[in-house]
């Protein structure tokens, strides 16, 4: 079964942040479906739509890997199933 999650990353800007996150996603056999990022006043904000096959990785493994990357590069990274975003704002 394919699972879609939304990865958000926030933190002070520096070189290679998007690459670090994308590399971690790829290493987990997950796919980047869409991504947007901005830098404002030195603050890096990224939203990445990621999907994966549950036979290839799990939510927990992806989360652990991305959180470890976040710690290494100085970003606060959240991984959440897309349904919480779909559900919260609309009926």
């Amino acid at each position, binding site marked *: 079964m394919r699972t879609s999650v939304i990865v958000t990353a926030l933190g002070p800007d520096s070189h290679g942040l998007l690459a670090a996150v994308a590399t971690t996603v790829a290493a987990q056999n997950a796919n980047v479906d869409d991504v947007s990022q901005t830098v404002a006043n030195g603050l890096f904000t990224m*939203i990445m739509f990621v999907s994966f096959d549950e036979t290839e990785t799990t939510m927990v493994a992806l989360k652990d890997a991305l959180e470890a990357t976040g710690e290494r590069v100085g970003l606060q990274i959240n991984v959440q199933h*897309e349904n919480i975003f779909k559900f919260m*704002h609309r009926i």
Partner: protein
Amino acid sequence: MVFITEQEILETVSMIRSENLDVRAVTMGISLSDCGGRDPGKVAERVRAKIVQRAGRLVGVADELEHKYGIPIVNKRVSLTPIAHVLGSDDPAAYVEVAHALDAAAEEIGIDFVGGFSCLVQKGFTRADSALIEAISEAISGTRRVCSSVNVASTRAGINMDAVVRMADVLKSVSQKTAAEDCIGCAKIVVFCNVPEDNPFMAGALHGSGEPEVSVNVAISGPGVVRNAVASHPEASLIELADLIKRTAFKITRVGELVAREASQMLGAQMGIIDLSLAPPPAVGDSIAEILESMGLGQVGAPGTTAALALLNDAVKKGGTMATSSTGGLSGAFIPVSEDAAMAKAAADGVLSIEKLEAMTAVCSLGLDMIVVPGDISRSALAGVIADVMAIGMINAKTTGARLIPAYGKTVGDWVTLGGLFGEAPVMGVSSATNDAFVARGGRIPAPLQSLTN
């Protein structure tokens, strides 16, 4: 396909990471209708086995959902058919034995609390009710996770003043027995008027007679989110403020709806209700009092507090009912003094009195909640305070509850530290005028007229 904007995504993340949005409790209601009997040993074993069988996966499922959606689920609980309806014994010791079985089952499956050591006596006592009330003191002071509630009043039956007085005695006894832990036993006892049958919040949760075999009820939270929304709009008029709170409550409730749907499916239970309550934990920044202060009050307890709370409570319900068709429980803003740091401070500063809290009870959820009173309070005075809260619920056809903590050996101004989500609070003063003759009359205050409602 549902379109999600970047702003909505970042708002959701911010609500959880910066504003303490969480799901306060996932509570599984379990019917014990097939566990009854008169032999306490057999009933205790049947009840223990059913709790473990039906709720054994509750903590695991809640943890799984917490990981999936990145939202904390703070408490996992079980509510039960009132034990007085299950154990048909007139021996208090039998109820104490069952309470220990409940405690053991709760520990075995890793939940925070189990509720339902309860009875409904608004019109009178059965022998089982009477024995259960007799057993509450020993049962609650001798267990860690068991919660007790007794419904002593309703709009249709009036107030059973004999039951009110007996509960005053129970509270004084539990206060003394748990004095070494700042009387924490009293935090696990609620006296109700119009008790809801599907409430997910402790200490008052029970699984009513109209409920299904097994249900999942979810209590939302999020005072911090509402407070930030209010604080960031200092220019808003009260109408605009109400709309803002409605929109925020909608979003908070949608999260509860998502968790309730998924948890009930995973646990093979019927989806119960979403309790549209703003429940404060003791953390600074996550407080009902701070919402009211952000609305423009210098400190909670100032003139206008009841009006501000009425606006907040109504807007939360309006926003919440748009977000789910399964509302229930207590649904409203809570004002537990010890669990709300800013409220406890206002009480210590002398700005917030018991009388003001009583007025606030008339426009919000629950009632005099987690309020510490002097340890030497008389039985009549304590019964009088409880009766006043019950009267507000009875006349206004709403649920009210009293969770009062007589602080054994302490007096006005001393602090009581209950720990964890129970928080800490100062001992508050109660009028010293006597009411002994009124309370001593006993009997029942009749049910009120439902017309001529001025």
